[in-house]
């Protein structure tokens, strides 16, 4: 991709009925109109999405990846949307991505990280199985990763696909279709889970993969709610069958070339793709391909940190593990961004290294803090963060998935 592309929010003038609800809703006054069109000012829009639900037409839900954003004046003159200038590149675009999956993915990746994979990433398969035609996997194992005496129940689940082809790459997700219907008699929504095992399987040369699943018992605001898919998965017993769609994801992928460095920052089950990539590297350690891994991993306590034990056993030649705990009695709260700062010199050196690929995965609220810390470190090194960040995105070297 030659030019840096920005994701711009637009309004389709052929679908819009000029009802003014978007302009009224926008908290940033980014939407304006003349007698002809309603348009979004790219300088003001921060992609918060508040204008999307009230739009009666769907015209508002228009996004383009553009090299040079369209000005307000240009948009006001439109009769219809201009032809798509972005390369038809988005790999696998022709594949039918279910609506819910597209929504979830768009939400997780909203206007932050790269929209292209690392140049040396393997080509991903996407959407081979749909909610209507799912693959069926068998549970080969279900292990609790967190201490029995902690309230957080995180599990390592191994699914076996038998003779069904289900190729995945590290960083991709699969969709789980929980059986049964909700209270109103409809099928449950698809839920996406990041694969926690490398491409050749949790158990090499077996057609299987692993997931990291946290049992959801409360929502983002802490209100009690029982996550349908997570509780279903956590309660599965060996031998039971699961309907799966996917795989999904074509940018949050690992580089394959020797010497590539991986800077990983995650919390909770955001560790799944990090584990997959680390495990890929670990199995190839003997090949001496070079390239280190630096992992920043946050949890409340060591006993709630998934893969805490196995992480301790990884060779330092492979990975530098930096753990941050926010709820250890007698110690001040430490979050991943604090660890990043503590390791500032090394992180800053990595930021300047063109072989560095950055992955951020976990809670939404971590994202801003982590990016601010990276920006601070870049500045300390005399680097302009907006420039650096856009370069990282352009080169597929900054990948963010938060929820």
């Amino acid at each position, binding site marked *: 991709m030659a030019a840096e592309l920005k994701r711009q929010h637009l309004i*389709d003038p*052929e*679908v819009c*009925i*000029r*009802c*003014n*609800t978007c302009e009224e*809703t926008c*908290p940033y006054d980014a939407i304006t109109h003349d*007698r002809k069109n309603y348009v979004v000012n790219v300088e003001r829009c921060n992609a918060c999405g*508040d*204008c999307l*639900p*009230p739009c*009666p*037409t*769907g*015209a508002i*839900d228009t996004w383009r990846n553009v090299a040079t954003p369209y000005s307000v004046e240009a948009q006001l003159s439109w*009769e*219809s949307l201009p032809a798509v200038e972005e390369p038809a590149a988005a790999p696998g675009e022709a594949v039918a991505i279910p*609506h819910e999956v597209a929504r979830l993915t768009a939400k997780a990746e909203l206007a932050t990280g790269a929209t292209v994979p690392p140049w040396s990433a393997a080509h991903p398969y996407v959407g081979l199985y749909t909610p209507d035609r799912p693959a069926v996997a068998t549970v080969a194992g279900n292990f609790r990763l967190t201490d029995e005496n902690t309230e957080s129940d995180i599990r390592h689940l191994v699914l076996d696909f038998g003779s069904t082809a289900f190729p995945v790459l590290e960083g991709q997700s699969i969709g789980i279709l929980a059986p049964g219907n909700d209270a*109103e*008699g*409809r099928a449950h929504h698809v839920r996406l889970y990041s694969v926690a095992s490398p491409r050749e399987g949790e158990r090499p040369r077996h057609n299987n993969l692993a997931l990291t699943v946290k049992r959801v018992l409360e929502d983002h605001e802490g209100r009690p709610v029982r996550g349908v898919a997570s509780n279903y998965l956590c309660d599965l017993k060996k031998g039971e069958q699961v309907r799966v769609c996917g795989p999904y994801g074509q940018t949050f992928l690992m580089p394959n070339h020797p010497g590539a460095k991986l800077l990983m920052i995650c919390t909770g089950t955001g560790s799944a793709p990090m584990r997959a990539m680390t495990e890929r590297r670990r199995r190839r350690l003997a090949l001496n391909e070079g390239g280190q891994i630096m992992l920043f991993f946050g949890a409340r306590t060591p006993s709630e940190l998934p893969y805490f034990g196995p992480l301790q056993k990884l060779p330092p030649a492979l990975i530098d593990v930096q753990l941050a705990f926010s709820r250890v009695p007698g110690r001040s709260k430490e979050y991943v961004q604090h660890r990043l700062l503590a390791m500032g010199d090394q992180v800053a050196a990595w930021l300047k290294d063109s072989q560095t690929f950055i992955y951020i995965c976990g809670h939404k609220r971590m994202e801003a803090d982590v990016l601010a810390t990276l920006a601070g470190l870049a500045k300390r090194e005399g680097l302009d963060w907006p420039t650096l960040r856009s370069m990282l995105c352009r080169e597929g070297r900054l990948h963010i998935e938060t929820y």
Partner: protein
Amino acid sequence: MTIDYASRIPNNVNLHENKTLQRALESWQPKYLEWWKEMGPEGSVGYDAYLRTAVSVDAKGWAHFDYVKMPDYRWGIFLAPPEANRTIGFGTHKGQPVWNEVPGEYRSTLRRIIVTQGDTEPASVEQQRHLGATAPSLYDLRNLYQVNVEEGRHLWAMVYLLHAYFGRDGREEGEGLLERRSGDSDKPRILGAFNEKTPDWLSFFMFTFLTDRDGKYQLAALAESGFDPLARSTRFMLTEEAHHLFVGESGIARIIQRTVEMMKEHRVEAPDQLRRLGVIDLPTLQRYLNFHFSVTLDLYGSEVSTNASNFYSMGLKGRFQENNITDDHVLTSTQYPLPEISAGQITHKPSSALGTLNERLRDDYIVDCQAGVDRWNKVIEKAGLPDRLTLPHKGFHRQIGVFAGQHVSPDGKVLTEAEWKAKSPQWLPSEADHAFVQSLMKRVVAPGQYAGYIAPPMRGIDNRPADFTYVRFN
């Protein structure tokens, strides 16, 4: 501001704190459901429709999409969040804090305004109740149902105001709203246009484009009201109304799209040839537009209206986007051009702006309609055809006000009785037009299939694909 869905009547007005009101509304609720089952969309009780329901009145919760059986739709009471320190923006009380209780001296006037607005809501559901039998697609059927449930919710909004602020009189009016019937000569709906039939989907789309737009302008004028509960109710209703306008505008645009496709594909222009191809020719569309536009203009009432000026001076009903108008907002010394017919010519004379508020709202409405018609014409233009649809002159085919009893052509010429008789058949839909349109009305409900006279939508609802199962018949 989240909505309390735990109680029988979802609301964001803390209904549980006022037991008397809660009981009154809870006793009205089963009557409403009875009315819905009797007069709501025919045969639809067991269907699952993919509908939008508000789960809160802020942007995030505004549009929650899911399958719902319509009698289980969570009709309730949602007011837009209050604006701190809001003051009355016009009339003799301009600058005073808005009222949260009904001022005693305006009680009966306000009640009449609310009842008149409220009466149109169930009326349109009644007018449209047979349309499901001839839906051109599942997508359109779903849109019809969405329009219907939201008109039902608008009735709730008005009934809440009647119950909460008008005591026993209000409760009786609430009953009356469920007792009148569109088109019933014994107990008709209050406004004429709401007793007309909506016999086919072309009429439905014209109705939602034109007549629901009158709703938008009336609601927008009430959203300026000094009576804050009314302003907040109507402000939220406006957000819902936008969808109805969209259904109308896009419905006609899709019919035009299909027609011009056939005109190009078969290289034909003659209406009878196009009709044989199963599409609606543009002259017929123009006649329907003329009819619906003119009867909707009558809904604004007489150009000169004491009622309207009283409503304004009292601070009860403002103008469209009052805040955007730069004048004194009292209007005792401002003027507005009033149409009149003299010596066979339509002219305008300056008249008191306060006395001509209906005319002003009608003119604002016409501007909005024109913009929509321009967008329809884009569809024709894009197909490379020279034809265009036009809005008729506002004096055309009017029954109320200055133009009543006069004969005005669509291009604004005053005609004699004889000229009108000779020419008006080409301007208004004939029996043959109705019969032809009716002949196209066939039910198409296979997912992704559309009746031959209408193109699929450019986008699905909630970004769903065109072949999405928008309604499940179970």
